[in-house]
């Protein structure tokens, strides 16, 4: 009997994967539901006996969609998959817990040292060195501690958290268990956005399975599904939400590592950050640190999206040029027009154009041009983009998602939106531009959190205003 791998993943499902799986089973294939390989442009991507087909619309015409042996797909084989090594290749529930059991035998101090050696930085957006947080939580005395996983993935253009939670949920469970063991926590909570119902379903199943395997005897993992608030991706807002409250931002200090969930030391990490941890322990922190460029160590899960021919997830060491990702990996725009602008790092990221597209994808190089890696989302626009309208949207999005606690963001976003409207209609745009420039300074420097604080980044880049000092 032939083995047919069909993704059980939101995008593939939306494109008919369930039906295809059923048909393949009816035809006598031994169907395995895997995750997605991240080649989203090819979904539904079906693999039969090692040969990939995609996009598969109709299994009657499978051959028309033949891509070739999965292992030889350049878009896959040229990646450096540490986080996504299993995803899309295996049935996630066909899970071997031996390696994680071994990791959990290691001394916390030993694990902390590996994390430090790896140079791992947070993948949620801020790029903060992971080991500092781990050590802080570890060293802060408390009656209890928490690991909190940020799976609120709200940035447009990002879907890595979703793919891994749907395709390899045990990778995340491993990361949480290792972190919990290392810092002395006994509870892990995953904050998943409500827009990802399939991820919730699969991850819950995984928790149950892990429990059945005896992996959760001394550690409790709970899944929490959000209720629709972008701001809850910000870690303090997320913690408020987990406490069952309005997701209003907390002022820092104290940082969550000192006083987080219910006032207890809490390690908050993005899904992908934690999913990098098992690989780091497996290969060693030093080996991980050799990947990438300078302080941007290891691999990054870039997500190529928007108006792009071949969108998907690309895991590569830091340092690849943005243009290479868009053109070589992505094949240019879906509409076939020239690239107009690329927004990197989500709704609070800069719109990059022209020579900026040659920037290597590292924390440092992007910071140097007033941009950021963020969660690795890359949204391509073709040359029909209206950047003033995008500036308007940046303010509008902030106005929509602002938690409303601090004044610069609460009122500023609305005034920004209105002033861009005035700008569009204006006879003397320099008046509005001056107001917007001042407003951006106020929002950037005075906002409580980066929602208000980073909204100026897309605005300025879209309007051609200089980015702020620091």
């Amino acid at each position, binding site marked *: 009997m032939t083995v047919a791998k069909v993704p059980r993943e939101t995008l593939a499902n939306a494109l008919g994967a369930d039906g295809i799986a059923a048909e393949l089973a009816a035809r006598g294939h031994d169907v395995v539901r895997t995750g997605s390989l991240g080649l989203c442009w090819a979904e539904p991507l079906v693999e039969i006996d090692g040969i990939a087909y995609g996009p598969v619309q109709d299994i009657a015409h499978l051959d028309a969609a033949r891509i070739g042996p999965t292992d030889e797909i350049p878009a896959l084989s040229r990646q450096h998959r540490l986080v996504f090594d299993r995803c899309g290749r295996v049935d996630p529930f066909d899970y071997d817990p031996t390696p994680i059991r071994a990791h959990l035998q290691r001394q916390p101090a030993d694990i902390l040292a590996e994390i430090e050696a790896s140079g791992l930085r947070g993948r949620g957006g801020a790029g903060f060195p992971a080991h500092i947080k781990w050590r802080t939580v570890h060293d802060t005395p408390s009656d209890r501690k928490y690991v909190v996983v940020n799976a609120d993935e709200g940035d447009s253009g990002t879907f890595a958290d979703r793919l891994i939670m749907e395709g390899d949920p045990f990778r995340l469970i491993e990361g949480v268990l290792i972190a919990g063991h290392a810092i002395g926590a006994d509870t892990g909570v995953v904050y998943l956005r409500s827009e990802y119902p399939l991820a919730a379903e699969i991850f819950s199943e995984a928790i149950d399975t892990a429990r059945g395997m005896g992996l959760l005897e001394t550690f409790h993992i709970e899944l929490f599904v959000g209720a629709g608030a972008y701001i809850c991706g910000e870690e303090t807002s997320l913690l408020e939400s987990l406490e069952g409250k309005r997701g209003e931002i907390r002022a820092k200090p104290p940082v969550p590592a000192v006083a987080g969930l219910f006032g207890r030391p809490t390690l908050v990490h993005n899904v992908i950050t934690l999913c990098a941890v098992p690989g780091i322990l497996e290969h060693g922190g030093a080996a991980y640190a050799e990947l990438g460029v300078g302080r941007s160590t290891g691999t990054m899960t870039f997500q190529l999206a928007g108006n792009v021919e071949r969108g998907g997830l690309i895991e590569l060491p830091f340092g690849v040029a943005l243009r290479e990702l868009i053109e070589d990996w992505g094949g240019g725009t879906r509409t076939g027009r020239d690239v107009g602008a690329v927004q990197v790092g989500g709704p609070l990221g800069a719109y990059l154009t022209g020579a900026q597209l040659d920037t290597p994808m590292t924390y440092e190089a992007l910071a140097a041009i007033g941009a950021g890696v963020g969660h690795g989302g890359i949204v391509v626009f073709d040359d029909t983009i209206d950047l003033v309208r995008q500036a308007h949207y940046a303010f509008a999005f902030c106005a929509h998602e602002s938690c*409303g606690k601090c004044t610069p963001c609460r009122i500023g976003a609305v005034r920004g939106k209105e002033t861009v409207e005035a700008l569009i209609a204006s006879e003397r745009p320099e008046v509005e531009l001056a107001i917007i420039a001042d407003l951006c300074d106020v929002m950037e*420097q005075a906002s409580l959190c980066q929602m208000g604080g980073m909204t100026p980044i897309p605005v300025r880049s879209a309007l051609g205003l200089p980015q702020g000092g620091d």
Partner: protein
Amino acid sequence: MRLADNDYGTPPSPAAKTVTLTVDGTVVTVPAGTSIMRAAMEAGIPVPKLCATDSLESFGSCRLCLVEVEGRRGLHASCTEPVAADMAVHTQSENIAKMRRGVMELYISDHPLDCLTCSANGDCELQDMAGAVGLREVRYAGGEDHLDAPADTSNPYFAFDPSKCIVCSRCVRACDEVQGTYALTIDGRGFDASVKTGADDFFSSECVSCGACVQACPTATLMEKSVIEHGVPDRVVKTTCAYCGVGCSFNAEIKGDQVVRMTPDKDGKANHGHSCVKGRFAWGYAQHRERVLDPMIRDRITDPWRKVSWDEAIAHAARRLRDIQTDHGKGSIGAITSSRCTNEEVWVIQKMVRTTFGNNNVDTCARVCHSPTGYGLKTTYGTSAGTQNFDSVDHADTIVVIGANPTEGHPVFASRMKRRLREDRPGRPPARLIVVDPRRIDLVRSPHVAADWHLPLQPGTNVPLMNAFAHVVVTEGLIDEEFAQERCDVESFRAWLEFAAADQNSPEAVAAVTGVPAEDIRAAAHAYAAAPNAAIYYGLGVTEHSQGSTMVMAMANLAMATGNIGRPGVGVNPLRGQNNVQGACDMGSFPHELPGYRMVTDDAVRATFEEAWGATIDAEPGFRIPNMLDAACAGRFKGIYIQGEDIAQSDPNTQHVEEALAAMECVIVQDLFLNETAKFAHVFFPGTSFLEKDGTFTNAERRINRVRPVMAPKTGMAEWETTQALTRALGYPMQYGSAREIMDEVASLTPTFTGVSFDLLDRVGSVQWPCNDAAPEGTPVMHREEFVRGKGLFVLTEYQPTEEKANRKFPLLLTTGRILTQYNVGAQTRRTDNVEWLDEDRLEIHPADAELRGVRTDDWVSVTSRMGEITLRADVTERVAPGVVYTTFHHPSTGTNVVTTNLSDWATNCPEYKVTAVEVRPANHRSPWQETFRSRNTEQIDLLPAG
């Protein structure tokens, strides 16, 4: 003028370690953990702020307080950023100024531009800050705003105008952090974020009108209606609330001679800037049209009242009293002092009785509330007072509340207690809570509070319950042997151990009597005894029983046996009902005790006073209130001077009280209003409100607080002057020039008050007695090294069931209490807008009992006891257990005390208000007493002089 200034922005840091830094070049040293903002303020450098205020945790939302820190990037909110050693802070720079103006420009872009006509003009932080940051123009050209948001004026005392709201959340945070009611929220998010209650308006919401939100609001959004009406005040007098035993300090804010508002004083050591609906808002009775301002006399109580001059009234009263004594003997007259009057007022009355009546017939209304506290704590510990200060509760790990309902009766203290119950940090879990009460009071479960144990005992079974606690502690090895051996009287301790261990005191044995499951008693006793610090708070549910004194001693025993005495976080603490219960007792208005709880029978004590006063003091103890009333009915007691008390409403068995009053020949009542007792009076002396008084009140924590006059007595004479005039008319040369001089005499004659003077109080704010050479600034926690009596005395507390028992005819047990918005007999609160919350007494009855009797909520029911009958409306609720009914006694027309009995505490005669066997039936008529009441009320009002 900003009245409530000097705000440090964030609360003080409790840390002992200090940190030195510079702010704009000025060196300042502050405790570690202090915010930069507070450090700057301490260095005399104010930082602009709107969301920060030092009564609330820092929040960081307004973003006006940004500062620069050398060596760090960006700007930092000085309210949320803690200081660090050697930090160099700059509060001013061109960039900072630009950012602050930018933020202010945003604020003002959504704010009405009506400063000149705004009720907060001159008292608005937004206005101040706009000036401070130098905002000159708003460049945003219109757009979305909240200027049309409709105002909510549903609360009788304050208005909420959201068009002026700057969404700083200070109101919401004050409601949460300070009051603990959580009645406010921000609704919506982003630009839509706005302050809301859980209902359509404030009045119908969960709000308890404590005023914390109004106090916290930096703009005119939440504003006292009195300020809207009269304008911003221009003068402040610090004084003390005249309601409950918490004794909150207030700033009476005045414009001309009009009190515009009362705001809680941040420096008040009992309340730390917090208040409740009564003290904060319900002071309008002082101006009420029903106040009687002229002295009046009449020969018979059926005669019309005649307005007379003070001289005539006093001469008349003196003559009547002397005539009575001539006819009926020296012992035929007496006086009752009030816990609502000042220490100085009480002092002169007891002195008058002793020097001119020639007897000791002086008693205080504390008789009917906390006399067992005095007896019980004096016997065991040596002082008739609670052991702690209120702040002590911050250090408690287990809190036991017995027979008290702090959220209703002592709301400001309740808020503090609730803070400790919510506090949850590593190493500092929330305090555990044990509630012993027949009713499910709010502390049992209300938002953010839940008792770990509620022991809903049968009314009247406190003593066996406490004995069972003792049993558990003794038999399960939870005794603090070392404390008991070293600090207590060992012989009595041994005897007590044996008593407690007896089988009849086991939880299993008392379960049947108390109705509380044995395992709950055991668990709660463990939680008490095993806590590092365990504190007991109790109220009239302990004292107003036939074994009130026994119960006080049972609690005192338990605290000693477990070492819970003598440090913060522990103790045995009465929650006093009225503002000056403690003081009235301290001042010696007792028939058996001279000031400072010294026996009149003691020759040496009498000699001290005789020498000081130049008069002979009768060595025989005098009459207690119940003795006076009984003697009056028997025709042996004929004249009485009652100041500030309404025994016809507040004392038990109303019909008996009325009979006694009617039997007397000269009843002198001094009060603000023609109260129920005054309807039986022959002489009426108009009294002054606390706004007119000069003197001191002593609260439940022994704290002596100043009461300062906000205005001259509207009656032309302060109470102490009236008493002094009467005393002189009776032939004794009383010669005080002021209340201050009276306190000087108190200090000179009372060892625990030696150091007290108005000067000291003006200097340090308030002190807790003992205040003397050993403790020049007072004593927050008593019995630290040793008990006042030396060794703590254990007293055996055998249970004697009350004679008042439920039976077939009277199957339910009635217990009584108070509610938040009303106060005692309601003389004050009923004459304020507080009646909007509840303008009648209601009977709480359990659904099972109600169903059996066919009673539904709002139905009229009659309550009959062996003493009498009343009718009122019913509330069917599970707050009371089956078999128990409950009501309040705030409204004279209800006549709650018509049904309560003559039974009283064996040691002190404190009435057993808390247990009355009754039957409840549907009713469609007023009770006979209520009919009489109605006609008497109309008659007596008709007898008042016109105008």
